[in-house]
């Protein structure tokens, strides 16, 4: 083994010289933005008079004048490879094509992992894009890298899953947590009555959106339907097999359960499949959030009465319109509305752009949607 020690030393030296050479190489494209250390600096250094009182969201630092200019937009959803985010991407592409002069691309990890998502965003910052759109896997963990983007003058807009408010400029809110929570409970109660046992199949136990929905559901139910009893919440990790198995186990362990909530685009069809294959359609209600394509067979058979969701295509569409409006100086802190193409005028509340009330898909309208 001795001679290889020498080899290793040589290799180390060669490697070191490469690194040194790489570091010594003059950075090409000289007029880059000076890179600041990624300190969590606040928007406080901005001239205060631009900001309305109570504005807590972030602002890009010394952004270049982008009015009417070509925009490079990169979208980093929680993950790629699932129908839901394929739909938001479609909406974004549609908006980018309508507006023209936009270089748009979606890229993200293949699993909903915050570490990998951070890596994607960090690399897009290095690439020098104009806009980063994101749906956060974790509101806090994503904040430092988003603040770094803001520090370098990049426009940062969230959709679907928010970050800490000071880590992005605007957030396109598909529906408030309260509205979704209420809609889910009302849908369930309309099917099983106010005195039933219900269970929840969520995505992962750490998923921030899901946890907020569960919180709002329980809060609303406690106030309005105190006899609605939540027996258990099981995770399904965006895997239909796990959602299927969790629902099977719920039906057997808690034989009195009259309804199951499926709280993600994967958990809902998985839960519905389990109820259907157990021959319990009509006896056990399945209520939840998912896309029409994934739920269509269950809705048509009548095993699922209705599917609650916003329109993810519209959500993506609005996010790109928001980005363009920010670049053109039309959407500023204090704005109260956003013109978003075919969606008309969207209401802006503080730093949140509201898409509207949640949408309910049922037997009659589900064929009109393809996502």
């Amino acid at each position: 083994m001795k001679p290889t020690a020498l080899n290793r030393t040589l290799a180390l030296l060669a490697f070191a010289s490469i690194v040194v050479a790489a570091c010594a190489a003059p950075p090409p494209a000289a007029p880059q933005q000076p890179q600041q250390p990624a300190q969590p600096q606040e928007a406080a250094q901005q001239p205060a008079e631009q900001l309305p009182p109570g504005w807590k969201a972030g602002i890009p630092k010394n952004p270049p004048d982008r009015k009417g200019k070509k925009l490079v937009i990169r979208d980093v959803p929680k993950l790629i490879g699932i129908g839901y985010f394929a739909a938001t991407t479609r909406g974004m592409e549609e908006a980018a094509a309508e507006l023209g002069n936009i270089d748009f691309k979606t890229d993200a990890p293949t699993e909903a992992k915050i570490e990998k998502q951070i890596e994607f965003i960090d690399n897009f910052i290095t690439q020098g894009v104009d806009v980063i759109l994101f749906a956060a896997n974790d509101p806090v963990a994503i904040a430092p890298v988003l603040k770094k983007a803001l520090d370098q003058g990049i426009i940062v807009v969230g959709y679907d899953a928010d970050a800490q408010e000071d880590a992005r400029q605007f957030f396109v809110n598909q529906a408030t947590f309260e509205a979704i929570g209420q809609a889910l409970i009302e849908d369930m109660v309309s099917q099983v009555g106010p005195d039933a046992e219900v269970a929840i199949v969520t995505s992962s136990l750490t998923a921030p959106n899901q946890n907020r929905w569960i919180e709002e559901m329980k809060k609303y139910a406690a106030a309005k339907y105190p006899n609605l009893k939540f027996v258990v919440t099981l995770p399904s990790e965006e895997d239909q097999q796990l959602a299927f198995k969790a629902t099977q186990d719920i039906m057997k362990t808690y034989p009195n359960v009259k309804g199951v909530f499926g709280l993600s685009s994967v958990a809902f069809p998985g839960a519905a499949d389990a109820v259907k294959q157990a021959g319990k359609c009509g006896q056990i209600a399945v209520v939840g959030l998912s896309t029409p394509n994934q739920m269509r067979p269950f809705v048509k058979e009548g095993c699922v009465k209705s599917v609650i969701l916003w329109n993810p295509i519209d959500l993506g569409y609005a996010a790109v319109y928001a980005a363009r409006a920010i670049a053109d100086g039309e959407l500023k802190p204090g704005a109260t509305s956003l013109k978003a193409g075919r969606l008309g005028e969207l209401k802006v509340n503080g730093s949140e752009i509201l898409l509207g009330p949640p949408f309910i898909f049922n037997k009659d309208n589900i064929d009109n949607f393809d996502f």
Partner: protein
Amino acid sequence: MTSKTSSAVTFLPSRLQSMLRTQEGVLLVLLVVIVVALSLLSDRFLTVNNLLNQTRLLTETALLALPMTLIIISGGIDLSVGSMLAWSAVMLGFSWQLLGLPLPLAVLVCLLTGVVGGAINGLLIAYVRVPPLIATLATLAIYRGFSFGISQARSARGFPEEFAFWGQGQIGPFPTQFVILAALIVAAHLLLSRTGFGRWVYAIGNNELAARYSGIPVERVKFTLYTLSGLMAGLAAFIFTSRVTTTRADAATGLELDVIAAVVLGGTSIFGGSGSIIGTVLGLVIITLLRNGLLLTGVKGDATFMVIGIVLILAVLVNNLVRRR
């Protein structure tokens, strides 16, 4: 394996040749090719800032890859590293936010958690003689379960500003964690290649029975290796928490595969007995730069995934062909 190449040759070309015949040599050539190609394709790639920034992203994986190299050389494996990281991070958040410990103490708890996790692995493997793959497959689930159970899937947040130093700050021009990592790489390299302990690790991996007969304290060495792995997981958890300013029970899920990929790409034999820290570092740098560079040139993540898979296989294939000659 490579020790057959004559060491007495004194003139450089043949020395260079023999160097290129090692996996490290092959990787070095590959790295140069990748760096040149990517820097031609993107002017944002070969910059000081980009390269230094990448070290922030690879630190946690690298910290785990160092003990993993030693463990794999010794003929073992540790699949629980990602879960140990998460458990340690959760303990940091838990002891600071819920128990109200001062932050430095919480960091100590974080490191100790890693040590305890690693020591349990070490006990099971070295003394109870559970095969490493099975033992750490079980603790992978157990430690992940601890993370969820203890945190109740809630994340700790709101760490003070100065805590960000370790994961987001700088020492001179270098990211803090890069300095720590560089020191540990050197230490691990010296430990493996210059000390008796390092030779024991190779000996155990080559032939455990023979190592035992020649008086090497096999159990103690193994126990130390897995405990070290735990300590590194604790350290990685600390730096990770400082970088992302929160602790999550599902942090670093599946990280073990990234770590193992770097180690085997680096030429460490999965059957034990051969390998090096330099190789592992090269392997990790290649994977990281590929991901970074391809993204900068506009290649999408799914295609990048494929490229990395192909490189992994090709690098070893080329090495085999070179060595066979």
